[in-house]
Structures are given as structure tokens and as C-alpha cells.
């Protein structure tokens, strides 16, 4: 009976004569296995499958769909025709303008609110936890429920909640969502209410992490409350604020639920956003080629924003 033994990886020879040299690849595999490569792969595999199936494959499929005309039974390559049709749609500029307007308003109205709230809560000596819970409460609301609730508040008649309250001081009634100029700001206020809790908690955590010595030193130097805020608090928070601002821009550029539920894009397309246009292409017109083409264009814009985000944050972190 003959037996075979695996030659040592070091390449030593046996008494029986020179053993065949292990190939470089076999050695690498053995080394990989010895260093726990297999277990790494086993742990990595579910992640790989999940991302592959639910993220990367849909992205690749979108890319393919954007170059095709399909009814999901047969597909035809159409080159860049879908992109041309998207760019020729007069509603694209309307939707882009509205989305940009929403983003700007969300930044102007929505960005300072959590910063101010976080600073105020941080100053509380008591009931800070309760204040944090109360501030975070709107985030717990299911988004559609919250949007429908606000839609009721914005009822345009004199009996609407906001109009009733404003009526006590002789204001209104306002048309709110029914008015082309007021609709988008009204949606931004709702969206701010729904999301400011998360940002406040993040800012609060940052504030709690600022070394008290800095404030003590500032006080010793005679700094008042505004001076401390301006010279200590805000500089310490600026990194987080920048990240939050850019994440907010990326998030708000993809706004859909609020205008879809509150106004359906009206009045007169004044709240029609890019994602709503994508939705219309796909589910109203059944044109997935155009829908994926616009999705990719939006992704491209967001990728550019992300690049700016990375560039700016690196610059800030080293300054």
C-alpha cells in the first residue's frame, strides 16, 4: 500500500527523494486557509449575497434598462434614446427646479432648527432626557401617517387647524397646499418637523462631547454666553454640521413621500419633484426605460454632490 503525504508548505524534501514543489497558487490558498480565510468568506457571504441581490444587481439592471425599451417580456436596445426623451421632457426642468427649491428651503428652514434645539437642550440642567425624547418623538411617527396628519392641519378652509389657530389672531384663512407659492414651503415645514429629531440628537451628542475645559477657559477669559457659543460651541460642531448639511442635501434631493401624499405634485406641478417624475414614468406611463434613465441621471448628480462632500470634509478636517 502506498500512501501519499502532502509536502510541507516550506518546500522541504522527504527521504524518498525530491518532492514536487508546491505551486505558488497552492501555497497562497493554503496560507489563506490557515489565516482564517474560509471563515472570513463564510461570514462575508451573507453580506455579499444581500448587497449583490438587493443593491448591486438592481443597480446594474437599472443601467441595462436605461438603454432598453422593455415590456419585461422582450427588450430592445435603444442606445441613449431614453436619456434623450427624458431631457426633452418639459417637466424635467420643472421637477429639477422644484427639487432644488425644496432642497434650498429645507436647508434654510430645516438646518438651523436642530442646531438651536440641541444647544438649548444642552443648556438644560434638568429634564434633558425628557426634552430629548420629546424632540425625537416625531421621528417615531410612520412617515405617511405624519404626512396625512399635516395634510389635515393644512386644510384650506377656515375650519382647518392652522387656519383656525391663525384666525384667533386675525390672520388667514390661507390656502396652504392649494396655493402654488405656499405649497412647497408648507411641505418643507412638515418635512422639517418629521426629521429634525434625529439631527438634534446627533448635535446633542456632539455637544456633550465638547471638553468642559474649553468653556472654563473661555469663561476665565471673560467670554459671555454668545461669545462661548460662537468661539467654542460652533467651531467644535462644524465638522458634524457640515456632514449633516451635505447628507441633508442628498436626502432632500430624493424627496418623494411628502409631496406625493400631500399634493400629488400640484398645484400646477409646483411640487412635482424628480422622484415623483420617475414614479410617473414607471407606474403611470409604464415606461421603465425613461424611469431608469432619469434615476441614473439623478444618481449622477448625487454622486457629484457626494464627491464634493468628501472633498470638503477632508479639507475641513485638515484645516
Amino acid at each position, binding site marked *: 500500500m502506498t500512501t501519499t503525504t502532502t509536502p510541507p508548505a516550506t518546500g522541504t524534501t522527504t527521504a524518498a527523494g525530491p518532492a514536487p514543489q508546491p505551486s505558488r497558487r497552492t501555497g497562497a490558498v493554503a496560507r489563506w486557509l490557515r489565516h482564517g480565510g474560509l471563515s472570513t468568506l463564510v461570514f462575508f457571504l451573507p453580506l455579499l449575497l444581500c448587497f449583490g441581490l438587493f443593491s448591486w444587481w438592481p443597480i446594474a439592471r437599472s443601467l441595462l434598462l436605461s438603454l432598453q425599451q422593455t415590456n419585461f417580456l422582450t427588450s430592445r436596445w435603444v442606445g441613449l434614446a431614453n436619456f434623450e426623451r427624458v431631457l426633452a421632457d418639459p417637466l424635467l426642468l420643472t421637477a429639477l427646479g422644484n427639487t432644488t427649491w425644496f432642497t434650498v428651503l429645507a436647508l434654510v428652514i430645516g438646518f438651523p432648527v436642530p442646531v438651536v434645539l440641541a444647544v438649548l437642550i444642552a443648556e438644560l440642567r434638568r429634564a434633558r432626557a425628557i426634552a430629548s425624547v420629546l424632540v425625537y418623538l416625531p421621528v417615531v411617527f410612520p412617515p405617511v401617517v405624519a404626512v396625512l396628519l399635516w395634510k389635515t392641519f393644512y386644510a384650506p378652509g377656515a375650519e382647518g387647524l392652522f387656519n383656525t389657530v391663525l384666525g384667533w389672531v386675525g390672520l388667514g384663512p390661507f390656502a396652504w397646499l392649494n396655493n402654488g407659492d405656499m405649497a412647497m414651503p408648507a411641505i418643507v415645514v412638515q418635512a422639517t418637523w418629521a426629521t429634525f429629531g434625529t439631527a438634534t440628537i446627533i448635535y446633542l451628542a456632539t455637544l456633550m462631547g465638547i471638553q468642559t475645559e474649553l468653556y472654563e477657559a473661555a469663561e476665565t477669559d471673560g467670554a459671555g454666553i454668545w461669545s462661548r457659543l460662537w468661539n467654542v460651541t460652533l467651531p467644535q460642531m462644524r465638522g458634524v454640521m457640515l456632514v449633516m448639511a451635505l447628507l441633508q442635501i442628498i436626502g432632500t434631493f430624493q424627496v418623494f413621500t411628502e409631496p406625493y401624499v400631500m399634493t*400629488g405634485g400640484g398645484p400646477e406641478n409646483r411640487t412635482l419633484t424628480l422622484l415623483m417624475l420617475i414614479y410617473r414614468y414607471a407606474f*403611470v406611463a409604464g415606461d421603465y426605460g425613461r424611469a431608469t434613465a432619469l434615476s441614473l441621471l439623478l444618481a449622477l448628480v448625487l454622486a457629484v454632490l457626494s464627491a464634493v462632500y468628501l472633498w470638503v470634509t477632508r479639507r475641513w478636517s485638515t484645516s
Partner: protein
Amino acid sequence: MTTHRHRLLGATALALSGALLLAGCNSGQQDTAAEVDTEAPVTISVSNKPTAESPEELASFERRLEQFTTEHPNITVEAEETEFEPDTFQALLAGGQLPTVFLVPFTEMQGLIARQQVADVTDYLGPHEVLQSINPSVNEVVKGDDGGTYGVPTNAYSMGLIYNRALFEQAGLDPDAPPTDWEGVREAARAIEEGTDAQGFATMTTENGGGWVLTTTSYGFGGLMQSEDGTQATVDNEATKEVLQTYREMRFTDDTFGDNFLMNYDDINNAFAAGQIGMYVQGADQYSTMVTTKGMDPEHFGVGPLPQTEDGLGTLGGGTVAIVNPTATPEEITAAMAWIDHYYFQRYSDEEVARADAEASVADGLSVGVPALPLLDQEADDRYLGWIEDQINVPRENYTAYLESTRTLPLVPEPPVKAQELYATLDPVVQAVLTREDADIDALLAEAQSTVQSAIELG
């Protein structure tokens, strides 16, 4: 030598491709309805199985299913509760999960036919006499440009004037005499506004509803939104201008249009069921939604024919169509047609089935005898209603005018090309007229005309 071999391979490949192509063509030709083995075992899936929330309907469905499989032992039917949703239809199709027989609304048919997402069943109607005798004006919705038939309507209604009979009475109006022209609608709206807490009139304005109702109402004023062949948009027409002018006067002169002009299908139905709206244009099938789903008093629900001007063309139809999965084999299509005949039409030929179905619906608290268009001819409809007379729980005597109109008022088809995009384009037009007193109707329609024409030409 190599070149020669490549040429040889190329020629062989070409010949093989040609042969395969021909074989493909031939096999396609052979697989017609006439060649189908109707005795071969086949499995089909069907949608809209009643849910456990309607136990009697479910029991009735299962009885009918059992009866079907007894009569067709080679056909296995797998029933699913799946229902049509605009957001999931494409996913079902793409994922190969679309049931063999699937119910879709009338409004989807034209898009499905244009995108070739539905099977052509023309050649499979032969053995089913009842499926060939469907009311021609209703059946128009399943016809393609090529003259083919792409489905079977299973119920149909026409758009009409929905009104609240209780509010009519409160306002001193006769609930049995709904307005038949738009001057009458305006007068009734003013009376409701003055005599009740409700608003006189309303219309949907979002999610394509505004355009859909504007199109319907334009038919009543004598205007079409597209040429008959669908190549020309005719949105910018006199009738539609008149409709919008009427809207404007009701909104700003009469002040009978309320103050919310962002209403989708659910918003307006909820408001009507709650007694907040006097009248609106919608399908007569709203009875079930209002009474069964939203708890409205059956005696409060009223429906009249769509008001017409002297030039009025008629009204738009609505309803449900049973389509067949476009990937179905000829055997599956044959089995699907047998199921559709059995499940949706046997009630018109079999009194026992008609009565059992009606009894099950009544037991589940559903409405029986809802005002609708005759699916077949008037005689078949009357016979069916006679069989289930003692089960009818809908006060049909309240809808005399509407029911009479189903025999006389012409049914005008939907715009033949890109109807949903057309409706979406018209939503902002309606919103503009209702929210801005200075809205330029001519300019709005001219712009909409250009947008719709571009959409038609883009293909």
C-alpha cells in the same frame, strides 16, 4: 483552409439560423387555438380569489371552482388573492408571477395592449358563444388597433353624476330628478351650498383624476381629446374650454366648488361619503365603495346620467377586464377562456349559479344589483336581474334615470393613445382654473395640446 472552414461554419450557422427562424415561425403558426389539445392536462392560476374576510363569497368561489374542475378534469386552477395595483403589475410580469387570468381596470387596457403586455385571445373565443356576444360598446375597450381582442370585460359601468340624495332633499331639490344639463348642475350646486353645510360640487384634481373627469365631462360637452386614430391630440377644443369655463364660474362666481383643489380618488370619495359634497362626476359603481366600504346610507347615494349639452357625445365607460398573461401557452389561454366563461358569465345562463352567487354576496354584506351597464345585451341583463330579484339589496328604483341612460347614452371610448399621460397633463390645467381666477384657459389648453402631441409623437 482556415478561411474556407470559417466560411463553411458561417454558412452552416446561417442555414441553421434560417431553419430555426422558420421553425420558430412555423411553430408559432401551429400553436393556434385550432391546434390546441383541449384534453391535455394544464394548470392555470387566477387572481382575485375572495379573501377570508368574505367567507360566503370565498365558499361560493370554491364551490364554483370545484364545479369547474369537475367539468374540466384536465384543468388545474390555482387561485390567488392577488389583485391589480399599478405599482406591482410590472413587477408581477417581470418576475413571472402574473396569474394566467388577471383582472385589470378599463383604464389600463389601452396601455397594456400598446406595450404588448397582454395575450391576444381573438382566436380562443370560438368555443365560447357568450364571450362573443358582449355588449359591443363595452367590448371596445379590449380591442387593439389590429382589430384583435385582448381580454374579456367582466363588469362595466358608465361615468355619471353622483349626488347625495339626502343633501338634495335638504336643499329643496327633487332627489329623483338629478340635473341633466350643466346649468341644472350649477343651480343644484347653489341650492346645496345655500341650504346645507355641504359644498355643492367637486372634482378630482390629482393622480390623473382631474384629467380623467375633464375628458369625461368634455364628452358631455361634445369634445374629444384625440383624433379617433390617436395620431392627433385635440385637447385644445371648444368643448373642453366650455367645461373649464363652467368650472371657473362654479368656483369663483357661484362659490360652490369648496376650497380644496388637490383631491385624489380617495379624498373625494371620503368627502362624499361623509356628506361634505353634493355632486361630482364618477363611475356609477361607486355605490359599493360608498355603501359597503364607507358605510354611507344606501338611500343617500344617488347617480344620474352624465349631463349633456346639445352637442354632447355621450359618456366614458369604466369597469374590469379579465386579461390573460402574455406568456401563457395556447393550452393555458384555452383553459383561461373556459374559466372566464364559467366564473364570470355562467350567471347569465344558469339561474342556480346566479342565485347562489347573489346569496353569498348578500350573506357577506356586499351589494347586489349595483347600477351598471349591461355586460351582454339588455335581455340577458334583465333575465339575470329577474333571477336574483329577491336578493337585490340596492335601491335600484333610485337610479331610474341612470339605468335608462345605459340604454340610450352612447359610450365614448378613452383617448386611444397614452390616455394616462394625457390625463396627467390635464391635472395641472384643472388645478390652475380652480386655484387662480386669472388662469388663461386658452394658454393652458394650448400648452397641454403641445405636451400631449409631443408625447404621442415620441411613441
